[in-house]
């Protein structure tokens, strides 16, 4: 097996190094060895050559927010199937949320995930540890211990930390540990039994809605507490215009706050719950569009895109949330929240580029160097093609059309509102630590 890989003639875009040019990229022993003019790579006689002409070559995508479901919910996803799905989506590093069973609130559970991911060996899996024991919101986890075990952040994702006191303590304590707190911002008193955005669609369908205020109240609270503590706060899956505005003001005030948005919140509205493209005659209650936070409005999408452009929102993260068919093939109010997102993320995001809402370089930056900054350098320098770094590379065709089909998903979760969507922009190859982990057929 060749130990070198030469990716030849692609348009190399690496926002971390401000590179955007047609170039060759040489990978040796799992690391980026060299970037330079086409045909000028040093001593690559024995290397395997990948012809990337007409394609974009960029750092492997990093996902700050996904659910791999293992341990505990292996019928929804495993570390193996989730890793494969991530590779198919162009991701080479993924941060998995701790709402497993048992939750990732101890060194041993973190060890389990890391060992299982290494055994699978497809993409780099970096666990996020719980903020509170058992995600119960009552007692802090042993954060120093978890940090030593290798977590990159703390979150009780799925269950917001309701108590302001507990969140304040978590922020204070995390300061010493030096890792960020990621919060799923939701005032659950305002969202009890609710299952979609509160708006005209929920009024029409007779469903209880989650008001935007339920998210914004917690974003405001967390920002206020972050100001008090000086802690690093990362707001997960921002979905409302009001949240974007709160984060904008917090950043202007100089707080150490970062934020992420998902591909589905950038591209779909609440109306997707009610209308499927293939059934115009009748309304629907599409459980594949049931997600938390819920799909919002056109106005929210505009604010989120604007927030991305201005750097108010730092990162795009999938919130990949796979579920079984049974979890979704039921009454809307009883269905599980979540979208299986790895394999449609890039395709759906490219629509923003083709519609001139986002620059290609900007999109890549939100998927590479920006999440890498939040993770830090503990796992080496990520999100860039700098020589000497881990060779995580994604190659895609920006104009190639394809149709999303959940039957093709390698993820166990076929729960996607994008089924049948025609996307322009397709992942061609994913290389993690120098190994080809996905190649398009």
């Amino acid at each position, binding site marked *: 097996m060749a130990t070198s890989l030469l990716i030849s003639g692609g348009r190399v875009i690496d926002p971390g190094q401000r590179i955007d040019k047609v170039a060759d990229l040489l990978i040796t022993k799992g690391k980026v060895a060299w970037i330079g003019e086409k045909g000028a790579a040093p001593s690559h006689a024995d290397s395997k050559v990948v012809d990337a002409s007409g394609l974009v070559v960029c750092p492997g995508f990093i996902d700050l927010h996904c659910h791999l479901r293992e341990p505990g919910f292996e019928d929804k996803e495993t570390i193996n199937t989730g890793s494969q799905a991530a590779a198919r989506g162009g991701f080479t590093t993924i941060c998995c949320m701790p709402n497993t069973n048992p939750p990732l609130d101890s060194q041993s559970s973190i060890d389990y995930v890391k060992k299982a991911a290494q055994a699978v060996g497809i993409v780099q899996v970096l666990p996020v540890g719980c903020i509170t024991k058992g995600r119960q919101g009552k007692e802090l986890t042993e954060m120093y211990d978890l940090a030593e075990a290798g977590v990159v952040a703390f979150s009780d994702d799925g269950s917001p930390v309701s108590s302001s006191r507990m969140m304040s303590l978590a922020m204070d304590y995390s300061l010493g540990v030096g890792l960020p707190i990621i919060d799923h911002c939701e005032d659950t008193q305002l969202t009890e039994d609710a299952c979609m955005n509160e708006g*005209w669609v929920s*009024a029409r*369908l*007779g469903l209880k809605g989650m008001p935007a205020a339920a998210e914004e109240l917690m974003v405001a609270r967390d920002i206020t507490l972050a100001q008090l503590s000086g802690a690093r706060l990362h707001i997960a899956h921002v979905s409302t215009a009001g949240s974007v505005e709160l984060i904008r003001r917090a950043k202007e005030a100089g707080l150490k706050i970062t934020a992420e948005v998902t591909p589905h919140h950038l591209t779909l509205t609440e109306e997707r719950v009610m209308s499927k493209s293939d059934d115009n*005659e009748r*309304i629907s*209650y599409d459980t594949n569009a049931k997600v938390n936070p819920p799909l919002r409005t056109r106005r929210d999408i505009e604010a989120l895109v604007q927030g991305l452009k201005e750097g108010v929102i730092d990162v795009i993260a999938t919130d990949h949330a796979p579920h079984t068919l049974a979890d979704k093939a*039921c*009454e*809307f109010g009883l269905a599980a929240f979540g979208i299986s997102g790895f394999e449609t993320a890039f395709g759906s995001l490219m629509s923003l580029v083709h519609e001139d809402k986002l620059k290609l370089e900007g999109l890549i930056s939100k998927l590479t160097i920006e999440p890498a900054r939040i993770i830090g350098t503990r796992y080496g320098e990520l999100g860039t093609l700098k020589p000497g770094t881990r060779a995580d590379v994604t190659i895609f065709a920006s104009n190639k059309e394809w149709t999303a089909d959940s039957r093709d998903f390698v993820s166990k979760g076929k729960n996607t509102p994008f089924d049948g969507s025609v996307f322009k922009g397709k992942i061609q190859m994913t290389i993690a630590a120098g190994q080809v982990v996905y190649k398009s057929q």
Partner: protein
Amino acid sequence: MRTIESSADTVTPDSLPPPSAAVWQHSHVLDLDDFSREEIELVLEIADSMKEVLGREVKRVPTLRGKTVVTLFYEASTRTRASFELAAKNLSADTVSIDASKSSVTKGESLADSLRTIQALGADIIVMRHSQSGAPYLAVHEVNSSIINAGDGWHAHPSQALLDIYTIRSHLGKTQNLKVAIVGDIMHSRVARSNIWGLTSMGAKVVLCGPSTLLPRDMDSFLKICELNGVSIENKIESAVENADVVMLLRLQMERQQSGLLPSLREYIQQYQLTAQRLSLARPKALVMHPGPINEGIEVSPEIAHGAQSVIEEQVANGVAIRMALLYLVAGGKNK
């Protein structure tokens, strides 16, 4: 039994117009949002014929003989269920009633599995009541049987809205430009939602009235986006009732007060009960309606509930005719 049925055979239901394929396109009845005015008119017209059947000594026609109608109720109900079952029996259908409000969920059987089982038993029409909005929309994807929505969560109750429209028209002779005030818990009301679609299709003006905690926050944008221009929203019952042709009261669930949406029943009664004084603001012969069951002395004062303007019992009687019409149309209708 046999003799009754064979005698029913000889009673030709010649008064039943055949469902016109050009007008009737529904193999399911889920809500009135996809009903044209012509389709509603057809239901009313057939209900008239059914009412004639109900007036006969032998209230039975053989129209649905050999068809099986299953009522599948995931929520307690007395009148709607009895009404559908009588309607089906009057049309000579075989009926099976399944009370799923206790058994199925605890047994862990999914709705889809229950529906497929019922289909396998040979159900031609499934009349379904469910506490979750949208449940019948799931059902139509799971089975080939016709689905009639007998109420889903807060969403829709089309047969109720049709019997309301039928009752209004039989009293007032028309629906065009009538003012219908719907008062009470709009937020949680499938009756109100279906009536919004049905009444506006029939040219009526609808005023929704209730305390703001019982009105969806985005009701106004729903009305605007769906171009339901004949519908407005009022907080004060006096404004809603003023010059109304019909005052329709909604049942107040006691849990609304317990969950904090209302400070007290006392204040609800003070602000929203239809009293003689408030009814006097409406047109002189305004109808008083209620989908039932009534909390007497809460939504409406007893003297009004049982007074000359009340058509509440008639609504129940008309319900059977409307449901006979729906079963008849659905059994012969085309796919939609």
